[in-house]
């Protein structure tokens, strides 16, 4: 259960501001794809257009076409909630629901889908927490508040919450930027395991992380502040980091700008 994501000519706006322009890119199933680039280059905007979270902000809109396995997610007849269930998202800062216990957090998505039976929820919660490498740490305190965990545990809880609804694609928006190195390592290990089942797209500022975890890397950049972000180069991660075809990519990954 993993699907191919294709973007063609995707352009996204915040009101009158054009944040990204003409992004064309295809992400293969069961791979990890990293989006890298300097701040403000539109990589998060692109990520949020993939599960239609971009349009949540007032005045934000997307043009062009985005498909998962040839189904246009911006089609008029497509239910936006179904899109978001199919394409899960993990955010920059861990955001478990503060009023809910660990267990309730994990099954929150399932409950939204109308699953009520306790045994099903319990099984799903254990499965998701095991997949997120969190089960052993929390199995004795599932009734405690999710917000009482450490930052790294909270982020894994959020990953468990996302994969509990069994999405096809998992988007991660700088999932480790608020975490310490050990928690980061735990999440990176987790990504390796998760790509057996899911298509993963991750935005990261950390180029070592992109090099470690991803199969393919997309480099975004902008000409100057106020210009829309563009996709500069998209290739195998190894190629991008050893022998990029575009000069700008090389400048960025060698630390000459950005």
């Amino acid at each position, binding site marked *: 259960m993993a699907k191919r994501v294709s973007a063609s000519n995707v352009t996204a706006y915040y009101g009158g501001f054009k944040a990204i322009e003409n992004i064309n890119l295809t992400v293969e199933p069961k791979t990890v794809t990293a989006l890298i680039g300097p701040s403000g280059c539109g990589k998060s905007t692109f990520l949020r257009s993939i599960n239609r979270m971009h349009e949540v902000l*007032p005045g934000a809109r997307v043009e062009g076409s985005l498909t998962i396995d040839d189904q246009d997610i911006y089609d008029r007849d497509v239910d936006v909630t179904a899109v978001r269930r199919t394409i899960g998202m993990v955010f920059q*800062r861990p955001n478990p*629901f*503060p*009023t*809910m216990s660990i267990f309730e957090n994990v099954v929150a998505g399932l409950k939204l889908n109308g699953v009520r039976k306790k045994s099903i929820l319990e099984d799903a919660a254990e499965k998701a927490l095991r997949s997120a490498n969190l089960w052993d740490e929390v199995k004795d305190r599932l009734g*405690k*508040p999710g917000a009482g965990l450490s930052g790294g545990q909270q982020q894994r809880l959020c990953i468990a*919450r*996302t994969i509990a609804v069994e999405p096809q694609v998992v988007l991660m928006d700088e999932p480790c930027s608020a975490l310490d190195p050990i928690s980061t390592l735990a999440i990176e290990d987790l990504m390796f395991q998760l790509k057996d089942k899911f298509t993963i797209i991750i935005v990261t500022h950390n180029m070592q992380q992109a090099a470690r975890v991803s199969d393919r890397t997309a480099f975004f950049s902008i000409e100057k502040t106020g210009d829309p972000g563009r996709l500069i180069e998209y290739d195998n991660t190894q190629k991008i980091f050893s022998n990029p075809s575009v000069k700008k990519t090389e400048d960025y990954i060698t630390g000459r700008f950005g």
Partner: protein
Amino acid sequence: MGETPHRSADAGTGGTRVTQSHERPAGASARVAEAPVSTRSPGGTELGGGGALPRSRKFGAERAFRGLTLAAGTAVLVIIAAIAIFLVAKAVPALRANTEDFWSYEGWSPNETQPKFGIGALAFGTVLSSALALLIAVPVALGIALYLSHYAPRRLGTALGFLVDLLAAVPSVVFGLWGRDVFSSPVADFSVWLNQHFGWIPLFGGDGPFGASVMLGGLVLAIMVLPIITSLSREVFLQTPTANEEAALALGATRWEMLRTAVLPYGRPGIIAAMMLGLGRALGETIALALTLGITFNISFNLIQNGGNTIAANIANAFGEANETGRGALIASGLVLFAITLIVNITARAIIYRRREFTESAA
């Protein structure tokens, strides 16, 4: 609002931190004052280096301010004690003179030579009208608050929020007069309709006349507490972290599901606090009810017949022609009202406290 216990805990630690640091900065500031002297003297030590540390000051602004805050804090206790002593001292003689049971007698004639008065009907009327008011106001207020915070365009939301706050500024006597002279006739018509179709329910039974009833009083009260509950809940809803709202949406929640998953649970302690403030106002409301209720002294669940009374309304109506015992009796009823509001507040605190583990980690 939501994290009242949390914030007060913060304030507590903040307070101790201030008193702890109080000693040392006092020394530090003295050292700064001393520094120019030592640099001016030849061969003097550098700022903060060498030499004996100066003694902490015995008197000064710090101490004076501490004394002032202590006095302000003590004043609260003194005022409460003074009120309590006054109320009890006035109430006890009247209660002694009462020839009927204070709790169960349904009537209020304390000015006779054989004083007879009972609190039962008044306390019941107070609770009934306030409960009715909350029952009507809370769903409407939460609806308005959710609309203003999450559905309305930002500018419209701000403008409407301002209007709601204006409603809170209308004096209660105006609400009372409006209720009596304008609102009572539609309520009377509605009451007749209720009586015809739902007369078999005791709440809507009776033979009339209808109009100046608990229903009218409750509706006027509901309008009066609506702005408090609305604006407080709106504030709480606006404080919901965007991250949580986005988390719910990203799981595939519709807007209403997002509100139910992220916003309402997060705002729960705040909603309870808002309800309790509204209830406090409803319980203590005097003139609006004195003007709209039909003033009877019996315990009845009937909502639409003329009648109903509350402790505060009774005090307003009866104080003018009360004698010594009459005033004492009214003061005793005031004590009971105080006890009722106290119980309401303690209950609310308890509800918020029970979930503190979840609300504290929320912030």
